[in-house]
């Protein structure tokens, strides 16, 4: 294969990835494509990126396509990632929801949950506040576009390196048990969580309204149009006082959606302020 055809295959696979996920690959991620896809190509007996792309064109929704998308995506995740966010959730947001929700029903959605650490961190926080949530129906839904990540999240088994990053040692002792050289999360936490394959740009996979939504480090990979599209979907699954938390450096400002910075909780957004009318959201959602 010539250097030129290699480059064009990289571009073609990046385009395939963007079509399926909405994520645009900048130069800094594009150069890694060949490296991160090496195992997938070897597993499927494909000699180079050109052959991989040809196979993806023939079967864009099969196992190879899912594996390709999974390998290119960034799965960075850790327990209690951005500790100050979880401190705010634990000390301010959850007590607020406990006081103000009309029914004893709390629904949390982790959009783009990767391998589950964020959802399980929230479950740990809720267990620390067990006195607040007694007699409540509490659920945490984690969704991710990668079926491989969801499978790992559902298994609830983590490598030693995973449980070291951000997880307090007291919580490791309380909520995990050794599983060979890995660590298995307790059934009590798994009972609070469920995980589902979902594309945040898809309008049909999830229904109902959530009280707290975390969508961190997802929108940053989208174009402004797709950011607005994703936020419009989140708005459809929100009530007016639902709180949305984005990643550091992400914002709803300039996206033309209903979410505005929350007056009560720093770093959170809600639909309390003026924004586009519902029919505009429909148009943004296409």
């Amino acid at each position, binding site marked *: 294969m010539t250097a030129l055809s290699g480059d064009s295959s990289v571009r073609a696979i990046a385009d395939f990835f963007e079509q399926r996920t909405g994520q645009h690959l900048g130069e800094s991620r594009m150069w890694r494509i060949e490296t991160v896809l090496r195992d997938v190509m070897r597993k499927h007996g494909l000699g180079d990126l050109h052959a991989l792309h040809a196979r993806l064109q023939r079967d864009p929704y099969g196992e190879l396509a899912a594996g390709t998308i999974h390998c290119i995506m960034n799965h960075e995740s850790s327990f209690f990632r951005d500790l100050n966010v979880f401190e705010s959730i634990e000390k301010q947001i959850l007590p607020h929801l406990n006081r103000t929700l009309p029914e004893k029903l709390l629904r949390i959605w982790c959009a783009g949950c990767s391998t589950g650490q964020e959802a399980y961190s929230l479950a740990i926080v809720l267990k620390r506040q067990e006195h607040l949530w007694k007699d409540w129906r509490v659920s945490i839904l984690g969704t991710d576009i990668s079926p491989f990540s969801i499978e790992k999240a559902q298994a609830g088994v983590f490598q030693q390196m995973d449980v070291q990053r951000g997880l307090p*040692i007291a919580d490791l002792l309380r909520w995990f048990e050794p599983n060979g050289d890995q660590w298995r999360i307790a059934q009590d936490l798994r009972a609070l969580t469920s995980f589902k394959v979902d594309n945040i740009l898809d309008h049909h996979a999830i229904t109902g309204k959530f009280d707290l939504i975390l969508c961190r480090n997802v929108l940053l990979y989208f174009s402004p149009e797709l950011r607005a599209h994703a936020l419009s979907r989140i708005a459809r699954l929100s009530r007016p006082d639902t709180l949305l938390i984005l990643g550091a450096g992400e914002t709803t400002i300039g996206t033309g959606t209903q979410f505005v910075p929350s007056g009560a909780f720093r770093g959170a957004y809600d639909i309390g302020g003026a924004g586009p009318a519902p029919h505009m959201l429909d148009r943004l959602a296409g």
Partner: protein
Amino acid sequence: MKNCLVVDDSKVIRKVARHILESLDLVVDEAVDGREALTHCEATMPDVVLLDWNMPHMTGLEFLNELTRRKLPQHPKIIFCTTENGLGHIRAAVEAGADEYVMKPFDRETLESKLQLVGIL
């Protein structure tokens, strides 16, 4: 700037830990075992101690028990950093007063997150 005392009989581990900790803007001192660490703490109490378990002369756990017994005016945060990865060791460390526990091998992100958890960063 906060001070970290790295207590480990391995020169390589001390070097790696120093490299990471200095990149996190900590001032680093070193001790090769618990006995040397105790002497250091009596002279200059660090903000945090990164503590190996198995060392000659005085183990990490013996160091922690002795430091607690002496009731010095200040007490540092204690982060065990060891190859002893069994539940029994972790429980024993926490019961002795360790604030956090790192299982070797470790990386920058792990140390950074543990230092955040104990309030050093």
